[in-house]
């Protein structure tokens, strides 16, 4: 039994009686217990996984209707709620928070008979891009454990990359799916804003974030997007996906398509040499596939990171205000405290990055400073949207390297917040403009992965996945060395 198989091959394996759900689940759990001490992808493993697996096996054996996941083990970022179990957001502040309800995406996975194998590590409240800000310790990159796995959905990326599960759900506010996908060499998709319900996703910057799949192949991503997307009565921001079947015609190719190479995101000054080489190589590949590649400039991209941090800090300051430890949270005796001193004590449990953004989020939208920061950021966002709308009149796709650099070592950037922020340079535009973007594994250089990012217009996931699949077919990457 190969734990590294894709979701689609897993389903075939079950259908062809090559293995049972229980056998596969057991193997996955074994794998987790072997490698996760080192990788720390998981914060918690689901105790009921084997029980669930047996139930699905029974359904299969007795010819009952079985959901299309056939018991495949899927890991979930620990900022997505499941009723009755902990959702910590990798924060001490939510150490004992047990969700009283289940998120829409989990309900959808459950109704398709997926097995939630465990909850994965992240940067605290999804703020970060290396998992170094997890209150429970970082995850490690399976390609080289001295290096960060990216983030904030680092645990999800690692769990898929290290074959601890078939696929994962992450969340992406400024690159949090695509960045670890690139660093861990898996496929990561950030859908159009509103395509996937956020009901049950703990908000960080709710105006721009999305849940999305992290998987071994582009086809698996399409398979999962089919399941989790669609309008949801519990989320007023969801949009109708018109019952798209993302797997249909996924091999349509990109012959004749117009691809814009975003000048600002491929600037040699901003990219590491290896990433630049890989990018140029990818452009050639696209051309070989019959696409027309052309440089295109998006002027506002230069200000996108600044706008992104201004907007997300403002929203985070508001979204995280509820953590006053009154209705839920962690053990902390309130007697003897006056209200304000109690909550400031309670909130001192936040980690350094969250605190940094709370402070920033208290400042940039404040009455005296909003004009200079928050309002300007909103203007950048709106101009960026205008630019994006304009370029998609001409181009089918935009491309760039997902991250301007390769994975870095632990501690290398943690003391330099600004250079940290610049790692998001290529990913935040998709969030600010609401468009879908995918990271496709493209190369392993010096033993570490490089991913290519493809962006498409709003709700163009279907063609985006076709382009990603076309690119994926051209690459042949080594097995993960763990």
């Amino acid at each position, binding site marked *: 039994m190969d734990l590294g198989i894709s979701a689609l091959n897993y389903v075939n394996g079950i259908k062809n009686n090559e293995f049972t759900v229980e056998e596969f689940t057991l193997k996955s759990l074994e794998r987790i217990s072997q490698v996760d001490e080192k990788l720390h992808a998981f914060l918690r493993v689901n105790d009921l996984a084997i029980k669930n697996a047996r139930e699905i096996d029974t359904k299969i054996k007795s010819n009952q209707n079985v959901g299309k996941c056939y018991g495949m083990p899927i890991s979930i970022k620990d*900022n*997505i*709620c499941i009723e009755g179990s902990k*959702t910590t*957001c990798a924060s001490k502040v*939510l150490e004992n*928070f047990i*969700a*009283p*309800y289940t*998120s829409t995406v989990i309900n959808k996975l459950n109704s398709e008979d997926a097995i939630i194998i465990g909850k994965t590590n992240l940067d605290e409240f999804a703020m970060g891009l290396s998992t170094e800000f997890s209150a429970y310790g970082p995850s490690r990159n399976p390609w080289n454990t001295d290096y960060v796995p990216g983030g904030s959905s680092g645990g999800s990326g690692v769990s898929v990359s290290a074959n601890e599960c078939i696929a994962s759900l992450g969340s992406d506010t400024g690159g949090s799916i695509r960045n670890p996908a690139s660093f861990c060499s898996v496929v990561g998709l950030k859908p159009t804003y509103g395509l996937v319900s*956020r*009901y*049950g*996703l*703990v*908000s960080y910057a*709710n*105006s*721009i974030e999305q849940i999305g799949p992290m998987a071994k192949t582009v086809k698996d991503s399409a398979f999962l997007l089919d399941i989790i997307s669609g309008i949801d*009565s*519990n*989320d*007023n*921001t969801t949009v109708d996906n018109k019952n798209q079947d993302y797997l249909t015609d996924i091999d349509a190719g990109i012959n004749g398509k117009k691809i814009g190479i975003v000048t600002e995101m491929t600037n040699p000054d901003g990219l590491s040499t290896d990433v630049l080489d890989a990018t140029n190589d990818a452009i050639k590949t696209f051309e070989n596939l019959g696409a027309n590649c052309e440089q295109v400039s998006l002027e506002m991209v230069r200000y996108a990171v600044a706008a992104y941090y201004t907007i997300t800090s*403002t*929203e985070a*300051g*508001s979204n995280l*205000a*509820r953590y*006053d430890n*009154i*209705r*839920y949270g962690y053990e902390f005796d309130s007697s003897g405290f006056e*209200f*304000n001193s109690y*909550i400031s004590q309670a909130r001192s449990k936040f980690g350094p990055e969250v605190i940094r953004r709370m402070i920033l*989020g*208290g400042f940039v*939208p*404040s*009455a005296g400073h909003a004009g200079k920061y*928050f309002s300007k950021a909103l203007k950048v966002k709106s101009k960026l949207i205008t630019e994006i709308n304009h370029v998609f009149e001409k181009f089918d796709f935009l491309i760039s390297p997902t991250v301007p650099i390769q994975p870095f070592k632990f501690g290398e950037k943690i003391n330099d917040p600004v250079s940290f922020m610049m790692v998001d340079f290529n990913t935040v535009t998709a969030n600010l403009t609401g468009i879908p973007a995918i990271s496709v594994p493209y190369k392993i250089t010096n033993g570490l992965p490089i991913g290519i990012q493809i962006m498409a217009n709003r709700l163009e996931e279907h063609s985006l996945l076709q382009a990603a699949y076309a690119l994926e077919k051209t690459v042949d990457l080594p097995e993960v060395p763990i």
Partner: protein
Amino acid sequence: MTKIGLEIHCQLTKLESKLFCSCKADYRGFEPNTNICPVCMGIPGSLPLLNKSAVEKATLIAMALDCKTPNRIAFFRKNYFYPDLPKNFQITQLNAYGNTSIGWEGKISVENKEIKIRRIQLEEDPGRLIYEGATEKTKLTLVDYNRAGTPLVEIVTEPDFETPHQVREFLNILSDLLENLNVSDPGLEGAMRADANVSIDGGSKVEIKNIGSFHDLEKAVHFEITRQQSLAERKIEIIQETRHWDDGRKITVSARTKEEEAEYRYHLEADIPWVRIDDNTKNQLQVHMPESISSKKERYVSKYGITLQVADILSSDRYFSELFEKANNETNAKDIANMITTDIMGLLDTREKREMSKLEGDHISDLVEYIKSNKITRASAKLALDEVIKNGKPLSQIIEDLDLGHVSDEATLSDIITEVLNEEAKAVEDAKQNPDIVNFLVGKVMQKTRGKADPELTLVLLKKNLGVK
């Protein structure tokens, strides 16, 4: 010149559910913290789902107050830490990107003076704080989140009031208007609250908060004007500040925190997409808008010839005017109006009594008809009303059950009169000298028949018996 402005908060108690979740909008009568869910408790990952009826009801208020209404509305977050706010921000409205609140620039006439409405917005009510414990050390603040998320409409007026009396009059008119629109029950405790700002000639604006009732609001405004005037007379500067109404001492007290410096970090609530209110929706609302109190009043006077005073009382009360509309068939309108204002309003003088009442329009029109055709006396009619309110049976049934039918049969009445005359020998003697005594004897006959005797016939028979003219 004294300038007074108001900020009124009105709960949309007639809605089924809260503003952003399916918990009950009317939280009254629940055990603490039982009318709650992940949304109104701000549980991580929950999302607000806008109650569209709340938008419609609020728009109705804006229209009734002659406001301009937007083509689309937006919601904003007002961020501040307070224990009654589950999310530590309140979802409210703000006219930051053009006019996106429920309404603006309206007006209403109060005692022939036009009061301008600056803005109307829709927002969520916070939870309720209950302070317990006597001493500083045992003091507890308890929070009940049942109210959190109740739809609240904030109405902000321009500082157009000049006297506390105008303020009171405005609040009466407004609360009748809200009741008439069927959006709120202003009589419910806490359903309507108001803050005021007061300034006198040349002085700074002072805000008064924490006022429990409309009655106290008038007092608070009155106190505040007097306070400011006495400061001015002594040439002491009136500072711009927020003051709280001290209900016990009936004075305003300076709030320790400087609330005007509060920093709310307003920004758009992205979880609620902008809501379009197209012309069609507005037209529909306009068409189905309940008739205004003033137009109702005018109609009652001009169409039915009801006196101005009765029409005034009847039209300003939603419950009784509805009852009136159901009962009247145009020919009996005057009698029905009188019966409602003189008899029924007294019997149904509380909300509870009205809710329990089984009285229908048909009962009233039947009753008026019965009185007119002499089938029942006015006195019996009152007994019948009591019974109808209790059990709602048809009037004919009740008259039979209680034996309230008119005694107009001469033989029966004569027997009773003979009885009375035998018992009241002295009065009979006196009556021959003093004709007024006859009325006393009529009363006795009424007593014996429990009000059922036909008074005119009784009088005729009595006089005949006594031989007086």
